[in-house]
């Protein structure tokens, strides 16, 4: 990997030995996505370790997702409680680590699902305090998080997923998201083979979707 634009590049460059891939995606059609994309492979390895409550995997999970969870808590509930909520999320996650199922979505999404609950509880509690409501607010449906909280969680996960993509893949995926270009036009614009563009988009979208799916598992 020769690119060093931003910290994304660093995600991939430091383990699993030397980078055998030079050139843009020489062999992606039908390739194993996890093997092709180290960031994904790293995430999957972490998920496996975390789900098995392996030592050190909590710290790895925090290093990987602590900033996203903290940003979510800060934006959704405010800077005063962001630290505390972030702690709650990771402590709760570790206590139920073995209930995490990679098949149902990413670890990042799962953590965000927990974070969403913590934030929602916090917001409710604050609402009660502010309103001076003494008796219990009917906690009829605690899963019904405020829509903007949901949407914030999703946005942060998408941003996280995009950051994980290699710059050249991210370029293609961003054109898929934000332009009206067809695959052919994206291929022309980026100067990459059509097949490469298609498979990069397909694969990246699958991984981004999985990120978002995790957040709903806790519903």
């Amino acid at each position, binding site marked *: 990997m020769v690119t060093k634009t931003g*910290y994304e590049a660093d995600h991939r460059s430091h383990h699993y030995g030397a980078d055998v891939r030079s050139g843009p995606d020489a062999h992606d059609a039908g390739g194993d996505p996890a093997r092709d994309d180290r960031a994904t492979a790293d995430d999957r390895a972490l998920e496996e370790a975390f789900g098995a409550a*392996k030592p050190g995997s909590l710290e790895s999970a925090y290093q990987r997702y602590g900033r996203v969870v903290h940003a979510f808590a800060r934006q959704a509930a405010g800077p005063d409680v*962001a630290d505390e909520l972030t702690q709650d999320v990771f*402590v709760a996650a570790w206590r139920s680590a073995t209930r995490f199922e990679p098949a149902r979505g990413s670890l990042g999404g799962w953590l965000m699902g927990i974070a969403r609950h913590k934030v929602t509880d916090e917001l409710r509690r604050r609402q009660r305090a502010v309103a001076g409501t003494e008796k219990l607010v009917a906690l009829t449906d*605690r899963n019904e998080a405020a829509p903007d909280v949901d949407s914030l969680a999703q946005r942060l996960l998408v941003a996280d997923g995009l950051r994980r993509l290699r710059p050249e893949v991210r370029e293609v995926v961003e054109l*898929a998201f934000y332009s*009206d270009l067809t695959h052919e036009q994206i291929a022309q614009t980026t100067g990459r083979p059509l097949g490469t563009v298609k498979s990069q988009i397909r694969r990246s*979208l699958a991984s981004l979707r999985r990120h*978002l799916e995790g957040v709903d598992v806790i519903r």
Partner: protein
Amino acid sequence: MSSVDPDDRLLDALRGGEGRPDAGRPEAAALDEADADLDALGRLGRAARALSADDLVLDEPPPAVWAGIAAAVEADAAGDASPGAAGWVVHEGGAAREPAPPPSDTRPSAATPEAAPPPSDTRPSAATPPGEAGPRHARAAPARTRPRPAGWLLAAVAAVTLLVVAVAAALITGGDGGDVVASARLQPLQQVSAVTAEVVEGGDGAQLVVPLDDAGLPRESAAFYEVWLIDSNIQGMVSLGPMRADGTYDIPAGVDFYRYPVVDVSIEPTDGNPTHSSNSVLRGTLS
């Protein structure tokens, strides 16, 4: 299959279009799955288009955050609540469980045998990219930590702040039956639903209000539910009595719920033994 290129359909769905002539789809099952896929893609596309500059700002949390997590997890391990044991969800307000005497390492790794073999297998440090938000301080932190170091102190301070705000708000707005001075989210330890407990202080003393009706407690023959306040060490405890229909439990005068912040609901066999059965269904920490 439809004649439309699946990749094109994917782009259309991502961008919010329809892009799929349903006529071509053979089976209903396949169609449902395709619909779910397209929905998910639409959601993904909307989230991506809604991204704002704020969403991209990720500051590194203060060092105390990781320190607090490590300490809480260490406390768990020392108290034999290893990962997956679940149940003990500590809410705002501090460690629910003081660790047993000698706290070992900060990491979950080395704390107890069931917390696992020596840290050889996973790759915590190696897995952390140099540029990523690594809490390096955590690694640099002393191998021995106090049971409740910075992070939880910070949490406790925050909780007290919240409490003050809550009390102030309650005092300002007044109330018809007393003021909520603390609350706890009681987390299920068994197959029941979480509920929120609140301490209400009024003219006639403090009461704990727990809407156990909402917890979906299974009906027990030969047993009843009992509500307890327990200290953070899970040693001293005060019974507030069997479950009541009105959900309100008097906290005896002289019982300071700051000293007994853990609200616990247990299943008690009708065996005449007045002590806690150790079979809890809900638990949470007041803050």
